[in-house]
């Protein structure tokens, strides 16, 4: 992890704390980053050095406007406008880890084919906390490629219970 990534993550954390909406900003940045990672066209547009910064920022504002806090939009716009869109996932992950670490928690990125309700997220967080013996916060990404079940990544640990994973295992045995 570079010092620049750390710097952006620390700055975002400071802004979120100053706004007093750390959890909501975490969710906004997490969701936008997962969308950014999963959409090739968006990723190519925001990382295109030939595209003017104002145009990149307007794309971010179009996508996030009304769906996210202004502070979240401003943070993503600042990163994209500075030409650091390619480092966005790393910056946001560091930001999430730092925020969770402040609460003595760790972030579990969970991928699911369908959205999880509050109860499921709470029970999943409790189960992951019990399994890893750490306080875990769950961030859910809806990913149809999972097919069914869940995939949780906590740091370097991946707990894969997806149908996709089972099919891949089956493929290996054929």
């Amino acid at each position, binding site marked *: 992890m570079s010092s620049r990534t750390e710097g952006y993550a620390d700055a975002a954390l400071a802004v979120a704390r100053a706004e007093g909406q750390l959890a909501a900003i975490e969710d906004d940045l997490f969701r936008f980053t997962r969308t950014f990672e999963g959409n090739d066209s968006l990723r190519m547009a925001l990382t295109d050095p030939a595209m003017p910064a104002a145009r990149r920022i307007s794309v971010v504002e179009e996508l996030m406007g009304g769906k996210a806090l202004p502070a979240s939009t401003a943070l993503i716009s600042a990163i994209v406008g500075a030409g650091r869109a390619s480092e966005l996932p790393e910056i946001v992950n560091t930001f999430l880890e730092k925020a969770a670490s402040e609460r003595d928690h760790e972030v579990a990125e969970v991928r699911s*084919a*369908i959205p999880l309700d509050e109860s499921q997220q709470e029970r999943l967080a409790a189960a*992951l906390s019990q*399994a890893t013996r750490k306080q875990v916060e769950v961030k859910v990404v809806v990913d149809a490629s999972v*097919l*069914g*079940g869940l995939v949780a990544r906590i740091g370097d640990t991946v707990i894969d219970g997806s*149908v996709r994973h089972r099919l*891949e295992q089956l*493929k290996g045995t054929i």
Partner: protein
Amino acid sequence: MLAQIFVLAAEAGEKVEASNPIIPEIDEMIWGAIAFVIVFVLLRWKAWPAIKKSLQDREDKITGDLEHAESVRTQADEELKGYQAQLADARNDAGQIIEEARQAAETVRKDLIARAEADAQAIRTRASDDIKAASERAMADVQAKVSDLSIELAERIVQQNLDRATQIQLIENYINEVGGTRR
């Protein structure tokens, strides 16, 4: 002596009156004998040494020529022997060279045959390996395609059969399994 002979001859000439046509006169015989002796003496005194020397020279020359001829013949014989020996050596050398050339040619022929056989064997082995590898690749490709198609088919079946209730059940199972394990 000569005067006595002359006197005797004169007296004898007085006594003989008729001469015989076959037998010469005594004085002729005497004079003839004297002339013969004179000629003999002169020849013996002057000519004989020259004749003898000439004969000796001739003899020496002939002897020298014979010796020279003998020497030349001997030398010729020796040279002939030398040439014959050289010829024999040359024949031996030629035979040896031919034999060596034949052996070298035989060695080269055997090497070429061995190399050709080795090359042919290598080509056969390589071709066999290539065929085997291609067969294995084809089999692996077929297996991979069968595997991909099977998984693709399974995915479609799973997608069609994974209704919301099943999805929720899978999520619940995951939560229960993860909650029951310690890492």
